[in-house]
């Protein structure tokens, strides 16, 4: 019965003990039912994180060292870059996101996962689709649109995988034992409803010309709207209050935040085409919708901030909270930046520059990925029933990722801004503009290398805990002792 004494010192004589014991048993049973599919998804996600990070790092160096591996067609920048983008988004973030969602679904519905067989099939198909897509792009079969480079067979596998995942999740949700549907679940249920429709329309090849460009960027931004951002927000809304031990500050703000998010974010897509050959009114509508995003973003920011107020010292010792709070703050930052970036004034300078890529990584990495890291640090010990063996590795991972993305973001934001100003100065020859970006591209490569190193540390540590290797520890894997933090 040792495994049951994880949170309790054994049955006590006080009256609430029996109920707590049953609760404990039920929670362990639910975690056990979600354990295998969750770990399958998380491990797959971490594998693609490694592949995608290396592809990105190599691509980054090649941009300012074009002769490096310059004779290899399969490694040319134009093929590595889409492989990086597709594997980190549809691979790492999506698969790790699915793993987090499966575990959350069990916890928030207080019921066992249903139709888990579909989840295994889903993860398998998803991995196959990613592998097929990556190999095809490297071999020269790019489908031609950004965020949609995987040829149809690979995209079909991923779409099928997603539907299987959603079916199991909806079936579990329908069997829930709680009356209240928590905020995180709104984002999750919405994303599972939205994403298949979005992905199928985008890959159906219905358009041509500039109409297709509009569809392309409606898709590109909506993938962030309906899938990647909800993953991050679902995680933040659960882990911040859960780890702190206090409920979310205002459910009202949560409601307002969700519906204004759904209403406005879907219209943002054309801010990727400012100045382009499309009707002015359509682009203006997207810019206005981008500015309206201040409403849901502020709602989320206030909610999380007020929940954490007075308890932020926990960030000094809890890895989960530190990663998730870093992510949640990055969400506020990237959204404010994005709302302003969408205006014509800013777009005139930064459109077509490296600035956009910096923004993209603030969102996909500093926001979503950091929250996923925090979620994994919470979930895996509970599934493995094994504590993280080397807390130092968590510290290493955090600093490599945090410093790495900070360098990355600063390099491309400043470099992109300079690039934009110079591009708009016609007396500066184009090749001189390119020259002035080189130091910033070097800095980005360094930042990206640090991030990649952090992922190697993280992947190793996750392998250890999944296999219950390394020293067996019972003390929590914190950055420092809670008492030290409390004493300050």
């Amino acid at each position, binding site marked *: 019965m*040792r495994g049951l*004494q*994880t*949170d*309790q*010192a*054994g*049955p*006590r004589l006080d009256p*609430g003990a029996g*109920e*707590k014991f049953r*609760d*404990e048993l039920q*929670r362990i049973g639910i975690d056990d039912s979600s354990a295998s599919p969750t770990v399958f998804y998380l491990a797959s996600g971490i594998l693609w994180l490694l592949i995608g990070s290396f592809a990105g790092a190599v691509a980054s160096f090649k941009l300012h060292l074009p002769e490096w591996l310059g004779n290899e067609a399969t490694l040319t920048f134009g093929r590595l870059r889409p492989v990086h983008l597709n594997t980190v988004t549809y691979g790492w973030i999506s698969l790790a996101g699915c793993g987090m969602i499966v575990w959350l679904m069990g*916890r*928030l519905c207080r019921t066992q996962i249903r139709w888990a067989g579909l989840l295994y099939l889903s993860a398998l198909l998803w991995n196959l689709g990613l592998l097929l897509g990556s190999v095809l792009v490297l071999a020269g079969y790019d489908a031609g649109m950004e965020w949609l480079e995987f040829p149809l067979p690979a995209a079909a596998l991923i779409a099928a995988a997603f539907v299987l995942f959603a079916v199991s999740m909806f079936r579990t949700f329908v069997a829930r034992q*709680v009356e*209240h*549907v*928590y*905020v995180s679940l709104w984002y999750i249920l919405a994303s599972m409803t939205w994403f298949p429709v979005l992905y199928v329309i985008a890959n159906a090849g219905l358009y041509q010309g500039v109409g297709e460009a509009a569809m392309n960027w409606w898709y590109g931004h909506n993938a962030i709207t309906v899938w990647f951002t909800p993953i991050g927000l679902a995680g933040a809304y*659960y882990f911040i*209050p*859960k*780890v*702190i*031990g*206090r*409920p*979310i500050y*205002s*459910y*009202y703000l949560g409601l307002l935040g969700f519906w204004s998010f759904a209403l406005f974010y879907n219209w943002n897509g054309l801010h990727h085409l400012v100045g382009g050959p499309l009707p002015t009114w359509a682009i203006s509508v997207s810019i206005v919708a981008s500015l309206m995003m201040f409403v849901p973003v502020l709602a989320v920011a206030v909610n999380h901030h007020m929940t954490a107020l007075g*308890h932020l010292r*926990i960030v000094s010792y*809890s*890895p*989960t*909270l530190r990663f998730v709070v870093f992510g949640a703050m990055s969400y506020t930052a990237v959204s404010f930046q994005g709302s302003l970036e969408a205006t014509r004034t800013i777009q005139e300078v930064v459109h077509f520059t490296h600035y956009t890529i910096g923004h993209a990584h603030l969102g996909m990495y500093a926001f979503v990925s950091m929250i996923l890291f925090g979620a994994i640090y*919470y979930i895996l*010990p*509970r599934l493995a*029933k094994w*504590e993280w063996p080397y807390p130092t590795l968590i510290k290493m991972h955090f600093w490599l990722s945090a410093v790495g993305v900070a360098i990355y973001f600063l390099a491309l934001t400043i470099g992109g801004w300079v690039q934009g100003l110079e591009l708009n100065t016609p007396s500066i020859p184009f090749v001189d503009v390119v020259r002035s970006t080189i130091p910033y591209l070097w800095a980005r490569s360094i930042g990206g290398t640090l991030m990649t190193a952090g992922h190697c540390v993280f992947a190793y540590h996750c392998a250890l805990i999944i296999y219950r290797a390394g020293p067996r520890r*019972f*003390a*929590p894997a*914190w950055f420092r002792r*809670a008492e030290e933090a409390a004493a300050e």
Partner: protein
Amino acid sequence: MTLLPAAILILAVAVAGAAFALSAFLWALRTHQFSVKHMNEGAFVIFDKTDRLGEPTDQIFKKPAPDPDERTAD
């Protein structure tokens, strides 16, 4: 489809959508979806009976209580 029928269509859809949203909002008010009790209960869903409010839950193994009457972990 030319512009005028398309504009009428989108206007009709927008009006229908706004009408639905308004009626959903009024329904929510009428059925007390926004009651303080409902809101608070929703926020507490993430906690189990074993979680003590105000205490961080980031560790999986809690130290056993030093009470000699308790059965400790084997």
